[in-house]
Every structure is written in C-alpha cells, then in structure tokens.
C-alpha cells in the first residue's frame, strides 16, 4: 500500500473501512470543496459514529414506511420475471417481444457473498455483451465494482436491461411518484447521479474485457409510480452531465494525497473502541482531531452529511452559517463580527475591505434611519 493509504488507515484507526456505495460516491459531488468530508470518506471513517461520539449525532434514519414502500414497489415491478417492467420497456422503449429473459443475480446458488456475486455478474454480462442476442435481457441486482480512492466499492443497481436498442441500460426503480409527468427535482437528481455511478462502473467492467463504452447507454431508465397509484411509469434520463462531474470528482479523490500531506502528523479519528464496540477515546480529543481538517460548511450540508451538526456548531458566528447567498451579499466577509464592525464604521477597514465597508455602512445607516434608531 502507498504512503497515503497508510496515512489514511492511521487516520481511520484499527477498524474496517466504510466502503463507498453509490450514494456516497454520488455525495462526492455534493460539497466537493470540503476537505474534511473528502478525508473522512477517503479514509472510510464511520461518520455517523464519529458525529455521535463528538456529541453531534446526525438525524436518525429513514421512516420504515418509506423503506417498506420502496421495497414493495421494487418487488411489485419485478414480480413474475419483471412482468410490469417488461410491459414498460416494450411500450415506451420498444424492447422486442422475444427479449424476455431474466437473470436474478441476488444470489449464486444460495451464495450471497459479494465476491461471488460480482464474479457471476461479470460472467453473465460479458456473455451478453459478446454473444449479443438471446444471452440475457434483464439482469436483476447485478453486483458491480468501482475502485474509489484505491478501495473497491461494490455497487448494486436495481436492474440492468440489455438489448434495449442493442445496449445495456441501467434501470433505477424508485418509489417517489411522478405526478402528471412531474417528480421532485431533487429526488430525480439523486437517482440520476446514482445511475451515473452505475454506468461508470458498468463501462469499467466491460472495458476490462475489451468492450467499448458505447455498449452501455448514457441514458438510464427511471421507473417510478405514476400519479397516486402503484402503476409503474418509465422515463429515459440523460446522465452525461453527471458522469463528467463524477469523473472529475473521482480523479480528484485519487489526488487525495495533496490533502493528506498538509494534515498534522499522527492525526487520527480512532474512537478506540473496546471489545464491546464502545468508544473509549475522549470526545474532546476526537473533536480536536476533526477540527484540524478544514470543513467548508454550508447549510445545504444539513441534508447531505453526517457531520453537519458538528460543522454547523463550529461555523457559528461565520457568514457561511447564514447561507451562500447571505455570505455573497456581505461581500464574502468570513465573520459576522467583522461585518458588524465594518457596518458600524468603527476603525479604518483594510483596503481590501474598503468597498464592502462602504456598502455596509450605507446599509446600516438606512436600517437605522428606517427603524428610527440612532446611527
């Protein structure tokens, strides 16, 4: 293992690393400017546990109703050899009638280990790609693998459809509704970027066997319930844009060493778990370690990162904590205190702040004037 790898292991401590999933890879594009998150993810640190230990647990989980609904919808669409899915692919994406074969890659003869499933997936997909016709159409839960920051990340698309205009099409089944042709833009975005991860992984897998990228479509099939029913509907979505972004972020992750090199030597987020898995290390010490890696907090983190409450607390008193737009309005000045200092017109502003100071003074004067306060 290279020196960076060793560094990252040290940072994580003697616990098995959290492997990336499609969701975490997708999250790389959520706040790529955040060094803290980059390091934590690269080292495979359990952010949930870390956040809880330093006293800022992330919001707890998902509602079981949502989970049930999600599983039930997927099961329904895939029931009886994907009967409903086939109907969709035939009607909307003109899949030939004869293309109806179905392979379940959930397990291999009762074996569900990731390595075995991945090997089996490779075998079937390769055969399909090379021998083309009647070598498989629907591949249920194939297990793909993408190397992220040197570690394998196992990825499990809901389904991959082949022979859809002669190419593999990644198919995502989501249980949020499409109502009169519209769905929640953020949920679709999440689905699309996840699918983009699968497309990348698919292309890598086939490339190893000398099969070109064109054999995997850069359009993915999104299957969602229609309106208020459970009737599935399908839509084709273009993932080219998301793939460019992901490629760039993945390549930056490969350059993680530049981030790691500037970290204090001996830095570690090890919680020193005892046999029972209870953290023994002083939270204060851990928090200190976390603080030594710069974060780039924005309120959007609250929806996207397990560390958000810690970082928000740390960001108290900065303009970043008030949101990107506010910080922008305040001329990018970092601290609220500075803003108010300049607004009061106290002292000479540094010349790189002269303009902002001017603006803020006027703003303060106007507010005081309108609120009948003394300037």
């Amino acid at each position, binding site marked *: 293992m290279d020196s960076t790898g060793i560094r990252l292991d040290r940072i994580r401590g003697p616990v098995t690393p959290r492997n990336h999933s499609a969701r975490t890879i997708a999250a790389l594009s959520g706040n790529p400017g955040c060094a803290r998150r980059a390091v934590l993810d690269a080292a495979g640190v359990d952010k949930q546990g870390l956040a809880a230990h330093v006293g800022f647990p992330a919001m707890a989980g998902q509602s079981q*109703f949502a989970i049930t609904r999600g599983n039930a919808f997927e099961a329904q669409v895939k029931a009886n050899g994907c009967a409903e899915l086939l109907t969709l692919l035939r009607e909307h994406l003109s899949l030939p009638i004869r293309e109806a074969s179905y392979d379940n890659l959930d397990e291999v003869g009762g074996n569900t280990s990731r390595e075995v499933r991945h090997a089996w997936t490779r075998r079937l997909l390769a055969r399909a790609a090379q021998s083309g016709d009647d070598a498989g159409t629907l591949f249920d839960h194939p297990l793909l693998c993408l190397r992220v920051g040197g570690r394998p990340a196992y990825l499990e698309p809901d389904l991959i459809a082949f022979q859809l205009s002669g190419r593999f099409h990644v198919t995502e089944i989501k249980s949020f509704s499409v109502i009169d042709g519209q769905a929640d833009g953020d949920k679709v975005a999440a689905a699309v970027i996840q699918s983009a991860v699968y497309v990348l992984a698919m292309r890598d897998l086939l490339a190893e066997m000398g099969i070109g990228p064109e054999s995997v479509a850069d359009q993915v099939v999104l299957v969602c319930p229609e309106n208020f029913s459970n009737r599935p509907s399908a839509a084709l979505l273009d993932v080219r844009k998301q793939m460019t972004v992901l490629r760039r972020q993945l390549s930056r992750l490969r350059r993680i060493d530049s981030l790691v090199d500037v970290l204090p030597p001996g830095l570690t987020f090890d919680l020193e778990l005892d046999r029972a898995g209870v953290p023994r290390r002083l939270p204060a010490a851990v928090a200190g370690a976390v603080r030594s890696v710069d974060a780039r907090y924005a309120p959007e983190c609250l929806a996207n990162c397990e560390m958000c409450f810690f970082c928000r607390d740390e960001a108290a008193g900065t303009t970043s904590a008030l949101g990107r737009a506010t910080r922008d309005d305040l001329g990018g000045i970092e601290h609220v205190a500075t803003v108010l200092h300049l607004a009061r017109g106290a002292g000479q502003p540094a010349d790189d702040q002269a303009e902002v100071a001017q*603006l803020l003074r006027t703003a303060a004067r106007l*507010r005081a004037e309108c609120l009948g306060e003394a300037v």
Partner: protein
Amino acid sequence: MSTLVSLARAQAVDVGRAQPVATVRHVHLSGRPMMFVPLALAGEACAPLAAMVGDHPRAPQLLVVTQPRNRTQRFGFAAELADIVVPYIEGYLGDVEILPGSGRREPRTRCADAPQILMPNRAGVSFARLLGRSTRFRRAEGDYAVPATVPVLGRWLTFLAERAEYPGSCLMLAATDMLTMHWATGQSPVEDLNLAALLGWIDPPDGRTGPEAALAAEDPVRWPPAGPATDPTFDNEVLARLIAAGNQAAASGDDRAERRARVALEQALASQLAPTWRLLWRAADLLRGLPPGGHVAARWDADKDAVTWHAGQLRDGGPPQPRRDSAVTAARRLARLERVQAACAAQRAFDDPLVMAEHRLTGEAFAGEVVAVEPGRLDTSGRRAKLRPRVTVRTWDPVLVDEGAALISPARPRQDARVVSVANAADGQPAQVVLELAGGMGHGRTAPAGTIPEVGDFDCYATFSDGYQPPPAFPELEQTPWTHGGPPVPYQPVPYQPTDEEAQEEWS
C-alpha cells in the same frame, strides 16, 4: 435576498434575536383565518395521516386516518376535511359587495370578504395542492364513487394552491413565508423552514435567546416537525406499533381493543400536531402586531375577485382545473405572474420605507432632503407654456440614475419626475439631484400646496412604479398555433378508471 436583509441577519446573530425587515404588514390577515396542519405518511405521494384544522385557536378539529394506505379511508379523510373546509369557504360567498361600473366597465358584484387558509410551511401548501389534484377528478357516482363534497374540496384546494403562486395573494399562505417576509433570523434560510425554530428566533420564550430557542426547536421529540412529513423516530417507534395494533384489534374483532387502539393513535397524532397548531396561531398574532401596508387591501380585493370568479366556475358547472396548463394558459399565466410580481415588489417598497431602503442601497431609488423648490417654474419651449416645477434633493444614498431618467415618488405616485442633473457625492458633500415634475398638480399656473414637495421635506424617488400594464393578447385555446402543438383536446369527463393497485392498496 439583499445586502440589507443579509445585514439584518448578521445583526440578528449579534443580538441573539430576529431583526425586522419590514415596518408594516405586507400580508392581509383575515379576522377568521382557517388553520390547516396536515400530516402525511412517509414514502407515499399524498397519503393523509392526520390533520388539525379549524378557525378557532381553542377549537381545533382532529382528523385521523387509522389505515393511511387504505384508499377508502383516504377519501374518507378528504370527505371529513371537506365538511370543515367547504362550508368555511362557502360561508364567504353569501354576502357580496357591489362595485360601481367605471367607463366601459359594467357595475359588478363580488364577495365582500374572502376565506383565508394558513398553513405551517410551503411543504404544507404543496400537500394541499396534491390533495386537490388527487380529489378534484373523483366523481360522486359510478364505481369507486366518493362523497359529492370531495371533488368540490379538490377544486377549492387546487384553486387556493394555484393562487398561492401569485406574489401578494393571501388566500393560502405558509406561515414561514409570512414571517421571513417581515423578520430576518440569525440562521440560514434553510433553517428558517422550521416553523418552531423560526419563531424561536422571532419571539423566544422568556429567559431564552433566539439561538437557544431555535436549537431546542430542532429536537423532534419536544418539537414535532410542522409536517406534512413526520419524524422518522416517531414513525418507527410510535406510529408503526399503533397502526399494527389497530390492524390486530380489527382482525380479532375485539371492539374494545379496536377502540383502545384508535384512541391511542389519535392521542399520538394529536401530540404531533398540537404544538404546530399553537405556533400557527402565534405566528398570526405576531403579524397582527404590525400595521397593514397601504396596498394590502387592494391586493386582497384582487383575491376576492379571484374567489368570486372561481365560485362562479363551480356554480356554472365548469370542468375541474386541468392536470397541466395548456400552451395558451401557461403563457397567459406567466404573463400575469410577471406583472403581479413586478407590481407587488413596487407596492411593498412604496408601502414600507425599510423595503424601499433595499432599493436605495442598490441605487434603484434614493431619498433625501428637499433643499430647493421652484413651484411656479414654466416650460415655455413648447407652443403653450407648461407647469414644470423643479425640486433639488440632497442625498447620501448612492445615486445611479442617469439624466433624463423618469422617476416616481411613493408620496405622489401619479406624478412623473424627470432627472435634470446629478451632482455625485464628493469630498464629504452629499449628492444633489435636480428633478422636473409633471402631472398631478391640477391645471393652475402654480402647483397647489401638497401636490409637490416643500423645502425641508424628506422625499424619495424610485426608478420603478406599480403602474398598470395592459395584459398582452394571446390566441384563443382553439387557435393554439402549430409551433405549440396545435389546439388541445377539449376536456371530457371520463368515468374514473382506478388501477388494481388503487382499488385495493395492499403492501406486504
């Protein structure tokens, strides 16, 4: 957002309490608003779980769905809701006011006052929109018939949610929007979406600072989310068991157990709704504390017109609102939205110096002391002399208007002020602007007092106005051109076609 509001946020952080960003109330508040706090089942498009609704703070009505995935119960909920909301709305359609005709316009009647439904947040408003969408096409006869009131509720909810898209309309409002329009907190807009946290900043309980109150408000156990989404730990630890218990009781046929289960569920859901219910009324009270802005009544009149029109549609048996806008409807609506938005923004600035200050800061307006006035100045360039008084204003505001620009003073909206000359601020001296006034001064040789400013007045001039623009002409629906897909197929009511899943929703 503007720098002025952002500064207010910074000040709020400093003081530990929200800061005003308005000096008057920019929304109409009904004397008898109806509060509507809905909860929905996680993971579903629009599965009502419960709601607290009513027009009196001490008399909330609790609606509960014991089997949120059961479609019949879903429409049962809609029916119960309709029995509360529809009468409330129709209560306003009775007494009307007569508007005298003006010019070509006929005299007409419209409802003297209009209903107002207040919801905790925007998510609540879109829930109302979805509930409207899921009910307005249902029919009272045939298979899967629903009570006749259900489609009526659906059409009203759809109407109200659509109106909520128009800036300045107050028929259906989200409390968080109302509050952030008047106060800036020391947290981010994202966090302002939490009604409890937002009110924590604006009006913290005694002995608490805004940030403390806001932080406390983020504990979903003490401050249940304002909905429609519930807190996952509530779903998993409380709701799931209670629903399951209900099922068992029902299956066992044990009436008492069934009753017990229902009561338990109602209690649990009420505990999730009650705090928000109280917050909603508190939000309304806080806003009542502010005097209404000058144009608020005029905008409310527009709302009354809209209600009257929609009531007419229902009375005349018009079709329910279509699923999506047609090409022509969409273009018309966009034009209306753009006009209303511009007018509303101008009105708010004209009504409220603190809002105007945002424009003064960006140079779209300026204000200052009138230092010289020529009330009798005549413009003799034309054939006959015209009264064109000039005023000189000194201001410390950034002046970015060019010579010849046409300005409006909120004090005299019917009067044009043309910029004659601008002397920018320099070495400690304020800027000086000379303006030439036209209109709104009668026909005398000199301007009567009060029709123009006097020396020493504090006067304001803006580059924008809320002047009326005529609506653009669009083709008729059936004239939709080939570039836009041609005329749409006219609406025919089709008997409701439920899918197998809709008819009997069964999840394992």
